[in-house]
Structure formats: C-alpha cells, structure tokens
C-alpha cells in the first residue's frame, strides 16, 4: 500500500501519457459504497439508470478486489474468498482493459475509491489518480461546507478536475 506524502498538491502534475480528449467518465466512492461523485465527459452508451450503474461499478470493484486477493500467486496466506478486506490489505489491482475502455482504479487508506475510465490505449494512470486524490483533499476535504459522506458539490473541484482530466487523457 502506498502512502501519500503530505497533503500538499505536488508542484507539477505528472506528465500526460496521451494527448486528446479520451476520458469517458469518472467515479468517486467512499468506503461505504456511496457514490460521492460521477463525472461524464464522453459516454454514448447508457445501459442502466445512473443509480444502478453506480451500484454495479462498486460491486465490480469489490468483487475484483476479492478475486485478486484470492488469486495472488506470491503469498501463501490468502484467507477465504469474499472476506471483506481493509484498504491496503491483500493484493489489489490498479487497472483493467477491455477492447473498448480502460479502467484505472485507486484506493486511499481511508477507503476512498477513485475510478477513471479512458480510451483502451491510455498508459499507466496511477500517478494521475494520486494527483486527483490530492485535488480531492485540497478542494473537497478542506472545504468547511462539505459534509463527509455526501455527494460532492464543489464548483472549484469540478472545474479543476475537468481541466486536469482534459490535460491527461
């Protein structure tokens, strides 16, 4: 499990991996599975209602995490399949790719999950997700009007996020 050095925004955002507008959407969940933020930039296909979509996404991440924790070929002590794991415990994953999209995933020690869905040929976005987490800390957590556990409604966070995502993907 990586720890995030300080709460300072790193002076320069990580270098962009691909240029152009390739980001599809982004989710932020808290540790209870509440969708704090959903942003959509380019999503032509909607198969489900928004609420169902968020639930399905959280369920997919939860189950994939228990799958990777159970499959981990480097450790012998893995426990049972499906036992809930604390953030940073067990083997997690950072991305998966299909033929139409790539999903990058990051979980903070407090259980905040940041999910970014981009074009399948996007490079490694781990550093970018860390930077987005820093944005979240700066603009949401430090906002005195924000109530933890409720959907994020911070204008400043949204505009900075849009700007940053446009610059990376």
């Amino acid at each position, binding site marked *: 499990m990586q720890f995030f050095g300080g709460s300072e925004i790193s002076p320069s955002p990580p270098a962009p991996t691909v240029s152009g507008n390739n980001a599809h959407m982004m989710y932020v969940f808290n540790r209870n599975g509440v969708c704090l933020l959903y942003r959509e930039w380019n999503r032509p296909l909607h198969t489900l209602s928004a609420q169902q979509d968020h639930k399905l*996404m959280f369920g997919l991440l939860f189950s994939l995490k228990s799958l990777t924790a159970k499959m*981990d*070929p*480097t450790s012998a002590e893995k426990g049972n399949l499906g036992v809930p794991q604390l953030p940073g415990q067990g083997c997690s*994953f950072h991305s*998966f790719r*299909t033929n139409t999209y790539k999903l990058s995933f990051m979980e903070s020690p407090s259980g905040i999950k940041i999910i970014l869905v981009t074009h399948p040929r996007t490079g490694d976005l781990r550093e970018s997700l860390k930077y987005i987490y820093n944005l979240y800390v700066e603009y949401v957590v430090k906002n005195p009007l924000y109530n933890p556990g409720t959907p994020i409604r911070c204008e400043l966070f949204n505009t900075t996020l849009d700007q940053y995502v446009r610059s990376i993907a």
Partner: protein
Amino acid sequence: MAAIYSLYIINKSGGLIFYKDYGSAGRMDTNDSLRVASLWHSMHAISQQLSPTTGCSGIELLEADTFDLHCFQSLTGTKFFVVCEPGTHHMESLLKYIYELYTDYVLKNPFYEMEMPIRCELFDINLSQAVQKDRVALLGR
C-alpha cells in the same frame, strides 16, 4: 521464478473445465479454483455492461499489484485465462496457441463431452510443452 503462474479454462456458463498451476505460492484447492473461475466469468460479463461505448467484449487484461491476468474469449464463449508476472509479453499469442491446442486435442477427441472437465492426455502433453517453450523463450531474452 515462473513467468506463468496458472492457467484456467472456463466453459460458456462459467464452469471450470481445466486448471493447471505452474508454481504459485500456496496453490488453490479445487473448491477455490471453481469459485474464482465462476467469479471471473461474472466480472467479465459485468465489465461489458459498464462499457461507455458499444461493442465491448469483456476484460482482456487485469493488472493487479503482484500479477497480470490475460483473458481470451473464443467465439463460442469458452474463456482461457493465464495468471502471469506483471509485464509479461506475448500472452495473447500464447492464449491463441492454447486455444489451437484445445480445438485440436480436446474438441476433436471423440470421447470428450462438450462443456465437461478436460481429461485428455495429448492436450496435457502438448500444453506443458507449449508453456515450457514459452518459458525458455522468456529466459532467452
């Protein structure tokens, strides 16, 4: 150190029909391998539902902290997936080759019942040769 940790083949309804371990720490027992296989089958299906664009055919590569999982789905819905070291290349071609072996030695076997666990000696022999060759190729680099 093994480049490939394990290989799974699951049928179109998510049942495990073949599992082979090539030296991962603390190998899984039969029940767990069955559970993991059917869990993967459903995760693969859900990932198609969450696609932002049309024409999604499921997860091809899952990058975990300590391993990569490459998955290949045949046109009939049989899924082949290997667990390997992070950053291992040429896994797509290996999976396609394993699929070829499956069609040659399993599907053409008159005693093989469709969708049932694979017990074909020729398949086992050719598979271990292919994996061995792959490992040698990896060491030669």
